[in-house]
């Protein structure tokens, strides 16, 4: 299959996912009503559900999945590590620490978001400064710095969960597992997604060279040190934006780039846009399942992506060992 066909297929699946997930949920909407509400602009309860509840949430899911997949793709080439995911640097842990602290002190949603933003940016800056300091840095030191900070943050999060009053713990756990139930206007996140993609897409060919390794890329004329800093910052911004929308939604950033590569798009000029669309589409599907499978009960979408992601990842890994033999 040609690359354009693969990209077209991914777009078609994502578009179908968006359309279908408008119709499903705790209140199923028949196709005829959907058509009346969307195409004819009729007002009523159906239109309210579609425009005020479903579409913003679908937009948030798409933005979140796209941002995570983009960050994952960038970090996998930055760290030369196929297991890198957006949370590897503890950005989500920093956001979670901020949000949980705000919950612990009983602050409102807006303050929680502010705390989360501060925590995520603080951790990203800390990893950047510690990881890139000194002349002779390498991706392994960056990786190790991030992993160590993430581990410390996890310990702090556990401490908060132990100290928090019983009534607050459930809300905290939902946030930690990744949940799209309380998203507001998805436009800022979608704009961040478009902006980050617009920054890195023109670097697609250079990223292909970087995938050959730092030294080889340097010998082929890539200014590696500057490029790596840009990649880190873009990936961090994308992750922070995603975490603020949906909390810690695991596995999307890890598996989507691998799935797209397995589909035949390893060239970053194709991989980056395809990952964004596939990641967005995947999270739209997962979120539609999360809010409809056990309706009216809604469970955190992060649980579903992990339940889907673990077997897919195990399959990928066992396939990899076959190829090695």
């Amino acid at each position, binding site marked *: 299959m040609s690359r354009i066909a693969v990209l077209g297929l991914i777009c078609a699946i994502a578009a179908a996912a968006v359309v279908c997930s408008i119709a499903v949920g705790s209140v199923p909407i028949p196709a005829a009503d959907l058509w009346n509400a969307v195409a004819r602009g009729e007002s009523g309860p159906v239109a309210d559900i579609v425009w005020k509840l479903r579409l913003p949430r679908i937009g948030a899911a798409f933005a979140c999945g796209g941002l995570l997949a983009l960050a994952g793709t960038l970090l996998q080439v930055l760290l030369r590590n196929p297991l890198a995911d957006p949370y590897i640097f503890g950005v989500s842990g920093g956001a979670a620490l901020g949000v949980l602290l705000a919950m612990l002190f009983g602050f409102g949603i807006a303050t929680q978001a502010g705390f989360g933003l501060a925590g995520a940016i603080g951790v990203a800056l800390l990893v950047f400064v510690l990881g890139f300091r000194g002349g002779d840095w390498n991706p392994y030191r960056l990786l190790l710095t991030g992993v160590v900070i993430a581990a410390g943050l996890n310990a702090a999060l556990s401490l908060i969960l132990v100290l928090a009053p019983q009534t607050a713990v459930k809300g905290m756990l939902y946030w930690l597992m990744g949940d799209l139930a309380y998203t507001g206007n998805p436009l800022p996140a979608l704009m961040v997604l478009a902006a980050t993609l617009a920054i890195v897409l023109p670097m697609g060919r250079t990223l292909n060279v970087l995938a050959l390794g730092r030294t*080889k890329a340097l010998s*082929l*004329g890539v200014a590696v040190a500057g490029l790596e800093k840009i990649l880190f910052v873009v990936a961090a911004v994308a992750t922070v934006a995603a975490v603020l929308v949906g909390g810690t939604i695991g596995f999307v950033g890890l598996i989507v780039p691998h799935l797209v590569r397995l589909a035949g798009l390893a060239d970053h000029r194709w991989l980056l846009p395809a990952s964004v669309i596939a990641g967005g589409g995947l999270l739209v599907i997962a979120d539609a399942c999360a809010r409809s499978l056990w309706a009216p009960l809604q469970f955190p979408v992060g649980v579903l992506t992990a339940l889907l992601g673990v077997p897919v990842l195990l399959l990928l890994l066992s396939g990899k060992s076959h190829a090695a033999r």
Partner: protein
Amino acid sequence: MLRADGLGAGYPGRKLLQDLSVEFTAGSVWGILGRNGSGKSTLLNLLAGLRGPDRGEVLLEGQPVRSFGRRALAAKVGILFQEETAEFWGSARDYVQLGRHPHAEGAFAWSAADEQIADSELERQHLGALSWRPYASLSGGERQRTRAAALFAQRPRVFLVDEPLQHLDLPHQVLLLERLAAEARAGAVIVMVLHDLVFAGRYCDHFLLLHGDGRFEAGAREQVFDAERLGALYGFPVEPALLGDERLFLPRAGAGPHV
């Protein structure tokens, strides 16, 4: 064209290169010989401007190599590493195409000329039929030929090649050496690390012997490529043999490992 000027390099507590000055003129094929860990690859990295020397300078066309922009340098100096990544997700063709990066116009797409160069270099390494196979699925020798094709696609004026014959079968060893010799005849400089004394004697017209403690001998083949120097270099007895007009150097049979 390329000049090492008083180079010094090493690791804390170990001196590999000391006051090394060599002029690599256009059209010559240099063989760098020495034992494992004697600084051969380090020297190639210094010549490529990938690391800075502790002392001295590398000059390309009279200018310090570190003063070139990365892309401008990559357009003139190409290096084939001893090890390159095996974790490449694209095809052999994708790998070779990346060799055109220093010359490509614009930031995103490849020009038709770049694509044609990649295709022709794959053909010249007999990889035409394997072009679209995933790089990771190729055999060791096929990967080495892919890497060589990428180097030739880069069209540098200075070729720094580190053990280029590894994993290659006999015809492809000769194919690669003949190609490098042809590049030298066309005015390029070849600097290669070799462990094969037969091919070294046949294809290199200049030698640099690195003893690994800062001592070195450099010069034309007649001056430095002899049994006595090679024996001292490797710490292993080497004997000359005559095959037609060609003087070969072979390890003495029955000599134990003099490590």
